[in-house]
């Protein structure tokens, strides 16, 4: 066993601004060379625990500590944040917001500069750190010229440039597309091997992190540690689901098929999964019985974009001959890597940008020619919800925020009151209608922004990353709400990186790559098509791999059956009930 780096014993913490402690009875030891995943739903205290590890608590965020928290044997409260940061290096969640320097080299050099490291050491160490994470070809690049994955490499290099004993990653997979997320997990594993530093990953997307082995998973909920065990043990039990964490999809599928998951099966790694022949047969039997019986109903076109091309001034073509048909009442996912044209396409649909080629037609109740309408007029039919609710909300009170679009349209105040209240009802915000926006959580603010668009009664609502930064419970809440909108006849278009969302909620997925549509198919079809997956930086679903493992050649049908089975009896039915009550 390696040397103890961090040790919490009977540790608790309460923020000054809060009435209740956020952490209770934490007992946790991190040793040199270990790799530990800390998982838990939003608000479980995992970010607070991370802040205690890197010293933001108690040095930046104030509160009361109880019990003991030591780093290399010294109480952290007797150290300084700088002493602690020489032991624990932190990579924060948003790799764009933490990019400090004007160029890659300066950002990596930041910690060294603060330590007064002079030439020629400074340039030398920056080069070495950049080479270690494979970003040395981009030293002079500015942050806006880098992809999400490259920015993350820079953040990592900026921490590794000083020899720390422990690397702490706070939600490293948020904001990354599936393929980049997979590379990030591989990169973390590689750094762990090369440097021998301990690694702590805070993340609720367990399946993605388990793409590479971890030694232990620490499960948290409501400020306490509920489990601290090997991944195989944890995945064989029910603790994850009970605490609002999604288990890997392939395990859910195995359970549907009646297979009992045991630690001996090595359930934490899909390539290493050991299934007996009888168990594989159980899966095949389930597939034969469940084999998709769903028929696809024909739907009417509501908005069609045909052969649309667009380029930003002085830029290369951002959209090339794009044709997409949006149908009445459907849930449509638009996927692809960052910069593939997803957002540009929705901006063209909303009229924020004018295409220079192609035709957009609208078949709803709208007398005029679509292309001649103003942004504001188009917004009466197609609503757009931005990813970050803080970038949309401009009023202090919730009621006023939702009423804003109606007021600018000169709707009489009486009608406004009626329509706003009705919308707040649909969005589950009625109890908050006289609250200030600032009192709401991030997820609730997201709903306010959706309400503010819905109140205009658009036939189509486009959402940019509707579930970014949400844990499984909030994800389910938001998605069930959107699905209910779909059932009421709204067309819901979701721009997303989340493959679970695609699989579970989208009737259809349109895949963008380099400004062109490269696939337009059911989500099961897209996520089992290796060619498309590779081009669009997606990741094949683990159900696909499971189907192969069990000797089922119709992978696509297997995935579709799983989705349909979930629609009919799965956990989503249950989750829906919970949301309603």
């Amino acid at each position: 066993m390696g040397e103890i780096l961090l040790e919490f014993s009977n540790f608790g913490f309460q923020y000054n601004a809060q009435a209740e402690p956020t952490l209770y009875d934490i007992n946790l030891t991190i040793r040199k060379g270990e790799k530990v995943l800390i998982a838990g739903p939003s608000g479980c205290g995992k970010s607070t625990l991370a802040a205690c590890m890197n010293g933001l608590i108690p040095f930046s965020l104030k509160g009361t500590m109880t019990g003991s928290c030591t780093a290399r044997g010294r109480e952290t409260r007797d150290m300084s944040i700088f002493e602690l940061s020489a032991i624990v290096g932190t990579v924060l969640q948003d790799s764009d917001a933490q990019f400090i320097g004007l160029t890659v080299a300066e950002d990596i050099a930041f910690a060294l500069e603060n330590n007064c490291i002079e030439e020629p050491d400074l340039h030398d160490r920056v080069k070495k750190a950049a080479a270690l994470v494979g970003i040395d070809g981009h030293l002079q690049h500015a942050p806006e010229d880098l992809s999400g994955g490259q920015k993350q490499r820079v953040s990592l290099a900026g921490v590794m440039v000083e020899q720390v004993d422990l690397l702490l990653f706070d939600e490293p997979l948020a904001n990354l597309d599936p393929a980049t997320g997979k590379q990030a997990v591989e990169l973390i594993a590689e750094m762990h091997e090369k440097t021998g530093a301990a690694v702590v990953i805070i993340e609720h997307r367990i399946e993605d992190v388990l793409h590479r082995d971890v030694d232990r998973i620490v499960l948290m909920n409501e400020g306490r540690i509920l489990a601290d065990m090997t991944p195989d043990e944890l995945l064989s039990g029910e603790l994850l689901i009970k605490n609002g964490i999604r288990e890997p999809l392939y395990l859910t599928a195995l359970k549907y098929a009646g297979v009992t998951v045991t630690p001996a099966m090595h359930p934490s790694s899909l390539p290493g999964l050991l299934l007996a022949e009888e168990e594989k047969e159980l899966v095949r039997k389930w597939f034969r019985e469940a084999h998709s019986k769903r028929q696809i109903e024909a739907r009417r076109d509501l908005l069609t974009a045909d052969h649309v091309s667009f380029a930003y001034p002085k830029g290369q073509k951002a959209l090339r001959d794009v044709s997409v048909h949006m149908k009445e009442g459907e849930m449509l996912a638009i996927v692809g890597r960052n910069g593939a044209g997803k957002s540009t396409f929705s901006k063209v649909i909303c009229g924020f940008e004018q295409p220079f080629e192609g035709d957009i037609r609208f078949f709803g109740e709208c007398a005029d020619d679509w292309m001649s309408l103003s942004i504001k007029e188009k917004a009466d039919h197609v609503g757009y919800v931005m990813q970050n609710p803080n970038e949309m909300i401009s009023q202090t009170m919730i009621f006023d925020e939702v009423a804003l679009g109606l007021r600018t349209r000169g709707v009489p105040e009486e009608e406004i009151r009626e329509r706003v209240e009705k919308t707040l009802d649909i969005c589950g915000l009625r109890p908050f209608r006289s609250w200030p926006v600032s009192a709401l959580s991030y997820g609730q603010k997201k709903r306010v922004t959706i309400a503010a668009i819905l109140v205009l009664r658009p036939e189509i609502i486009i959402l940019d990353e509707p579930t970014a930064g949400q844990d499984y419970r909030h994800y389910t809440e938001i998605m069930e709400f959107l699905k209910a909108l779909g059932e009421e006849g709204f067309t819901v278009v979701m721009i997303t990186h989340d493959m679970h969302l695609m699989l579970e909620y989208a009737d259809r997925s349109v895949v963008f790559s380099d400004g062109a549509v490269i696939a337009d198919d059911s989500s099961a079809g897209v996520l089992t098509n290796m060619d498309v997956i590779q081009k669009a930086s997606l990741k094949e679903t683990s159900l696909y791999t499971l189907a192969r493992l069990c000797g089922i050649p119709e992978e696509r049908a297997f995935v579709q059956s799983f989705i349909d089975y979930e629609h009919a009896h799965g956990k989503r039915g249950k989750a829906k009930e919970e949301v309603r009550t």
Partner: protein
Amino acid sequence: MRNIFNYIDRPSPIHDLTGATKLICLLLWTFAAMLTYDTRFLAALSVGGLLLFAVSKIRIRDVSFMLGFTVIFMVLNNVLVFLFSPLHGVTIYGTKHVLFTISSRYVVTAEQLFYHLNLVLKYLSTIPIVLLFVCTTNPSEFAASLNRIGVKYSIAYAVALALRYIPDVQRAYHEISQAQQARGIEMSRKQTLFKRLKSAGAILIPLIISSMDRIDTISNAMELRGFGKNKKRSWYMARPFRAADFASMAAGALLLVISIGLNIVNGGRFYNPFIS
């Protein structure tokens, strides 16, 4: 995107000087130009500034926007001076040579015209040099230079961060304003001033709130990487002074000395050709 600090990367002797040298020379030069109204000296500075421009390989069209802006400002300044104080030159130089009369109040004198010439020379002697500094100093090096001339590094770094975030804020502003337009917020000239101010709020408030979130994150990130640990810090982009740097600073200091000397010789800030 980074159009506020319009750094143009073209190899030249001026680009080779360190940022700190250029900043010090800029300060010395502008002080020298501000202290005196000696026409001969200002004319020499103007010619010198233009020569440096040629050396730096920065072309006129690279800075045409700023230049146009300056010319408008200069013309406006001269017109206003004449309108409000048509006999300012007479008060300064103590003689009155009337050239022609427009009305009883507005009389054109040689002294006044000479004063205007001086005003124009002031612009000509300082603006090119400021533009030159902006175009030839790498923004990354700018913070390091500020720190080197004695500005506290926390303040110097704040400047660098502002430069880092300008493109991000521009992009956020653009996106927010599009989304708010869709909700019916209009910024066009058709609206009354009051409505336009309200609309500006609907865009600026989300911009400020989301920027505050970013500031929170960045300040945590900076602290976690040791910002503020020591009284001093080193700079990745800093370069050592070389002979050309010392020579340039010496030349700058000489200009300031000449300027002060002229103030003494002329017995005031103005060079007076009317009494000789």
